[in-house]
């Protein structure tokens, strides 16, 4: 469904876009800031930020607060593990597309161990057994392939992004086997998974987002900076993971 939707969204966004005014060359400071932030669509982005922020205040944040109040940390942790396990196929596909065989191996082992010993993914047994979790998604894969990030985008519902990340996001949805299952009840399952994931993700950053909104002079710019830095560090983590495929016990014989 959503690769198309994401593309449509993106083109609609670009059509709507008002452009930030490029400062004149006579003001080098302003020009430098402008180049660094690479946010030519800032006026439009800020409109969507305001809309998202409003939706968050009346919908997502209250849901997240309720979720945290009703369920203790233990339950939330197990639910999070379960959701993470369900995203293993997409994670695995991205590990493979990044040509990181050890990461793909970790993901495979995590899925097998956590689905069986971890009772369908409720318990993350694999982390303790030497298969730690890691990040992989379509946006990271495209970055590893050398695709440039492009300008900053703040999208309705999705939040901070870029053309590269939107494309990766669409690819991830297309790669997810659960989206192709069409038996009776699957649609309910997928919508439930989507809803619970959204609330889980929101609840896990509740304190931090509250803090940013309270402490930053310009929360929009602060979120933009954090998003960019974090994505860059995820990409670097993948690129610097050059573990050998041959296990130590074999090569040391």
């Amino acid at each position, binding site marked *: 469904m959503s690769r198309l939707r994401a593309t449509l969204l993106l083109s609609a966004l670009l059509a709507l876009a008002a452009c930030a005014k490029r400062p004149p060359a006579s003001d080098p400071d302003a020009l430098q800031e402008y180049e*660094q932030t690479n946010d030519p669509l800032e006026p439009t982005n800020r409109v969507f930020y305001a809309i998202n922020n409003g939706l968050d205040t009346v919908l997502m944040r209250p849901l997240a607060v309720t979720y945290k109040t009703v369920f203790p940390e233990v339950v939330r942790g197990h639910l999070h593990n379960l959701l993470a396990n369900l995203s293993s196929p997409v994670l695995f596909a991205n590990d493979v597309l990044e040509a990181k065989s050890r990461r793909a191996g970790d993901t495979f082992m995590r899925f097998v161990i956590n689905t069986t010993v971890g009772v369908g993914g409720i318990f993350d047994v694999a982390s303790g057994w030497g298969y730690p979790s890691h990040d992989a998604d379509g946006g990271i894969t495209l970055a590893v392939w050398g695709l440039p990030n492009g300008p900053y985008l703040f999208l309705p519902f999705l939040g901070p992004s870029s053309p590269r990340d939107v494309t990766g996001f669409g690819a991830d949805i297309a790669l997810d086997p659960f989206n192709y299952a069409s038996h009776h009840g699957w649609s309910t399952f997928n919508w439930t998974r989507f809803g619970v994931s959204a609330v889980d993700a929101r609840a896990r950053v509740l304190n*931090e987002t509250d803090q940013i909104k309270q402490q930053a002079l310009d929360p929009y710019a602060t*979120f933009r900076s*954090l998003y960019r830095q*974090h994505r860059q560090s995820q990409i670097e983590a993948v690129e610097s993971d050059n573990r050998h495929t041959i296990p130590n016990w074999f090569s040391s014989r």
Partner: protein
Amino acid sequence: MLTRRTLLALSGFALIAAGSGWLSEARAQSLSPATAQQFVQQTGDQLVSIVNGPGSTEQKKAELQAVINRSVDVTGVARFCLGSALRRATPQQLSEYIQLFHEVLMNNITGKLGEYRGVRFAVGRAEPRAVGVEVHTVVNRPENAPANVDWIVQDVGGSPKIVDVVAEGTSLRITQRSDYASYLARNGFSVQALIDAMKRQLQG
């Protein structure tokens, strides 16, 4: 698509963050990774024992302030965060700004004291960087996933000082600088506007 890790950066903010610095004079002096590692261990131990220890909130705030003033190059961080506006600020504005920066930082750190009760940390390897040494730690808070926090330590005026804290890949000083840069850009690049905003922040 902000993940929780992105935002853990900001939880790192409050206690650990304490800021970063930028003193070009410090480049000449070198700091050994072992010294930096030991320094982070000591400073971290002090912070943790204050946060988890007994005493009133007021007492803890005062103790934290002392540790931070001793171990963090707050003035250097303040100058870095002002970015290109540093050149436009008058000497009076600059000293007022640096004073406000100290207060805002302390407010941000001490305001969330309660959330850090039970915090633990483990120091990992230390690596020399182009400027200073990067010391890796893992910070554990109850009810939270472990966070990777890297401390950038530099020799400032003959003693080691923390000049930046990088939580899950996000640098505190770069994030703070972006915030101020954007505020300045939207307010006619006026340093006075920034100073006024910081004052309002402290009153609110």
